[in-house]
């Protein structure tokens, strides 16, 4: 294994992770809800949603949207680089949307909240989506030499 020490950013990574944990803690301690982004978005799309379920979901998403505006005003936006073309983005988006709803969670719901609850179900989900991510990048970059 070849570690890329020049791009390794342990301090911001750990600090950002702590903030993500604080955000998840706020939502569960005050509101009793899981900070799972795919579930929060998916719940807005549900027709059979009970009343009062849309407001907090939209407010959470508004917070996520405002975060980069705040960051841009205070420190400037960090580097954002996307190499994927439109076709890859569409395919990836479809798979992420479908997969997270079938699998009942994503990196935040299973990966952060589920592992923090010591849920075996979330541990299985996290190991599976990480493994699928590792294999996909291996296939795309090292077997096919990259995608547009």
């Amino acid at each position, binding site marked *: 294994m070849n*570690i890329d020490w020049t791009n*390794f*950013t*342990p301090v911001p*990574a750990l600090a950002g*992770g*702590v*903030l*993500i*944990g604080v955000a*998840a803690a706020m*939502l*569960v*301690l005050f*509101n009793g809800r*899981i*900070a799972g*982004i795919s579930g929060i978005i*998916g719940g807005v799309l549900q027709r059979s949603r009970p009343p009062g379920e849309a*407001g907090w979901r939209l*407010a959470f998403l*508004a*917070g*996520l*949207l405002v*975060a*980069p505006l705040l*960051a841009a005003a205070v420190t400037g936006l*960090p580097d*954002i*680089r*996307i*190499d*994927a073309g439109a076709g890859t*983005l569409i395919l990836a*988006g*479809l*798979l*992420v*949307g*479908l*997969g*997270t*709803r*079938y*699998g009942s969670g*994503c*990196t935040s719901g299973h990966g*952060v909240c589920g*592992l*923090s609850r010591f849920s075996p*179900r979330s541990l299985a*989900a*996290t190991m*599976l989506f990480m493994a*699928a991510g590792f294999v*996909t*990048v291996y296939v*795309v970059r090292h077997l096919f030499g990259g*995608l547009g």
Partner: protein
Amino acid sequence: MNVIIAFLSGLVFGVGLLLAGMANPAKVLAFLDLAGAWDPSLALVMAGAIGVGTIAFSWAKRRSLSLLGLAMQLPGATDIDRRLIGGSLLFGVGWGLAGICPGPAVVLIGAGVAEGWIFFGAMLAGMAAFELSRRAGDLLHAGRRT
């Protein structure tokens, strides 16, 4: 009040993603690229988030009401079924293709990145397809019973 907390939680979450580098798809893919120049940063993002999360959830698990007096709604499912396995694998493939998961997708839109809209639109379509298939499944199920 719970709407204000949700907004603040989303804001802190988004700032955390930006600071951690999770909102930069190139960095996420560098983490997923074990055979290339591997950037292990995102493992520390998970460690930081789970470190704080473990404390919060150990408290939450013992309570039936939140600090605002709302019902504590923790997931009750425990079975590792075909849906969980298949869904997680599909998600992982999509994540590996673009380096974007649902939270960063929303942050990218806020950052004014056009690719964020393309990904987010497709992700909503995928979620809507799930809703439709679930409704169709419910109808089919109801039809079989009657």
